[in-house]
């Protein structure tokens, strides 16, 4: 049931709620799973100096990013007793309110999924070379930075 193969994490544009719902649906055949935990990153319409963020344009050093995502997957499977794990990140334009990151972990037991999900999300934020240009309504922009 473990799903350790490297695969492309990036998707062009926003991650839709249908895609997420369908991904949940596919796990209903895996009847050893007792707990799923899902993290979704959504683009905020932040107000910065009286201008509102309309969208984020994501770019990445794709080869290095996919290698890092793979390292994070391997480390998480090593550390936590997970049945499966899925990570998707957007590239290109994602509008405010849309979803840009989808991390999905599943395990027989709940304690494991809480720890694993936070570990994975923090590692993605810290270690993966993805860059975000916050575009304002007047077409000006600033560069996003994880904190």
């Amino acid at each position: 049931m473990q799903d350790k193969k490297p695969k492309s994490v990036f998707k062009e544009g926003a991650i839709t709620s249908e895609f997420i719902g369908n991904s949940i649906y596919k796990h209903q055949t895996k009847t050893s799973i007792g707990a799923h935990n899902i993290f979704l990153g959504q683009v905020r319409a932040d107000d910065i100096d009286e201008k509102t963020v309309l969208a984020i344009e994501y770019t990445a050093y794709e080869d290095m990013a996919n290698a890092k995502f793979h390292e994070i997957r391997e480390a998480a499977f090593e550390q936590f007793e997970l049945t499966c794990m899925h990570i998707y990140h957007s590239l290109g334009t994602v509008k405010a309110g849309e979803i840009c990151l989808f991390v999905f972990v599943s395990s027989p037991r709940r304690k494991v999924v809480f720890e694993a999900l936070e570990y994975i999300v923090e590692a993605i934020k810290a270690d993966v070379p993805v860059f975000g240009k916050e575009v304002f309504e007047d077409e000006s922009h600033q560069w996003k930075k994880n904190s």
Partner: protein
Amino acid sequence: MYINIKYFGQIAELTQTKEENLEFSGIIVSELVETLYLKYSNLRTKNFQIAQNQELVSMETELTGNDIALLPPFAGG
């Protein structure tokens, strides 16, 4: 030697190119960065990390003549 250098995000905006080949005779990363500061004077004002062959390296790391990338702060998620 020739080094292939990739620029991303805010750094690519500043260099106005995403990738270039530079002839370079230094030994460690900091020497390459000094060369880039001469070519792109505004680069000094920016924060970035260096990756060599897709791994982050320090200023003292020896150049191996392969892929170098200038990476501004990460913003994934």
